[in-house]
């Protein structure tokens, strides 16, 4: 069988980073084989394709690996450039998009993790910081439907996976994100209307159950 366009995604369903790649592939209409990894028993292919970090997601395109979610999304945009561009064509706008994706990378994952792994005063601080973080992003969004403007793009792809974690954050943190960050919720619901996002983001309650199991294993109450 000829492998002239074989695309395999090594991933793990709860991973927000993996979700970015799935959304990008769906936006572009790329057919791919999804492989869910058992992170306690990584496949030979994963270790071979990402020997440095041994992490998911890894995109294997015609047997060549591409690692790191932001790098993979840019790669997908460059290779399948004929459809649904994720990055704008103007260099200044592109720099702007890359800056905000980098900002999201630097703060969101750690920010959300702090909330569901901490208690008491630490959790209060974590929640406050996260709300502030979302406020900065809301300011950036302004009145636009998406971060990229009229079209769903690179920054939206970078951020939307974290929305699937909101139920966990709200339950663990006993707060409602919508109360302080209405715009982000509106934006998230708008994104969820896209097929690529709707079929990628896991059910929020299923994710919550996964996290409870995971916490039990870690010995965190």
């Amino acid at each position, binding site marked *: 069988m000829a492998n002239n366009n074989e695309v395999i995604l090594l991933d793990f369903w709860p991973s927000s980073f993996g979700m970015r790649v799935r959304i990008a592939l769906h936006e572009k209409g790329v057919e791919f084989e999804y492989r869910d990894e058992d992170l306690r028993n990584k496949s030979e292919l994963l270790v071979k394709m990402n*020997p440095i970090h041994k992490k998911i997601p890894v995109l294997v395109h015609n047997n060549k690996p591409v690692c790191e979610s932001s790098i993979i999304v840019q790669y997908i945009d460059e290779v399948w450039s004929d459809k649904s561009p994720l990055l704008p064509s103007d260099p200044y706008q592109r720099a702007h998009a890359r800056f905000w994706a980098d900002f999201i990378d630097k703060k969101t994952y750690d920010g959300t993790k702090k909330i569901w792994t901490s208690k008491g005063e630490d959790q209060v601080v974590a929640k406050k910081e996260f709300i502030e973080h979302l406020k900065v992003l809301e300011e950036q969004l302004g009145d636009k439907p998406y971060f990229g403007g009229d079209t769903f793009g690179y920054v939206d792809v970078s951020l939307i996976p974290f929305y699937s974690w909101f139920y966990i954050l709200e339950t663990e943190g006993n707060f409602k994100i919508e109360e302080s960050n209405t715009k982000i919720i509106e934006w998230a619901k708008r994104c969820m209307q896209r097929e690529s996002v709707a079929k990628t983001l896991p059910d929020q309650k299923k994710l919550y159950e996964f996290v409870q199991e995971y916490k039990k294993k870690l010995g965190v109450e």
Partner: protein
Amino acid sequence: MGDEVEVRVHGMWASTYSKRVELALKIKGIPYEYVEEDLMNKSQALLEYNPIHKKVPVLVHNGKPIVESLVILEYIDEVWPDHAPRLLPRDPVDRARVRFWSGFLQNQLLESVLKLVMSSGEEQEKALDELHEKMTIMEQEMGDIIPKDISSIQSKSLGLLDIQVICTLGAYKAHEQVLGVKILDPHKHSLIYAWVNAMMDLPMIKEITPPHDNVVNFIQMIFKINPSA
């Protein structure tokens, strides 16, 4: 001072992030005005250009600011595509590899260098081992990307990864002097050793490299290290 100047860089002499931007512009032969920032007393301009992080470097192009060194480098490559060399390769797989290793140098390698500088005794030995392990991984996995024929290295053919290597490892001699450890050993990591030294010897790089003693003093001051006897 208005924005009649087309390209301006707000930087700091000891910041390797700032150097990346200057190097990229110099390599591509793009003239620019340089503004040295006092990081203890940041200019109003800097705070306006980079309100989120309030850091250097900032590239101001026709009055518009671009921040984050790697974002700036990709911008430079895209805005001046006719100014050779290209900082990133054309092929998407190669671009992804360059971005990956660039990230590795900027995050993983730099993290180990920082650990090394900020620790002492047994912890420092561990940090040094960790750094060396990462350099071994680089030599094993970067393979074809590391230039084998170092006589072919010239300023006109430097790219993003070369810039990253210069800025992460170029000051190794100053670090070695301050810490009294061997960071870059030609016997352990011959490829990286040859690559770094070939580039640091280029006239354009020498021109932009701060004097060795200044770097030594700066490292000692910033990490509050007492000069070794």
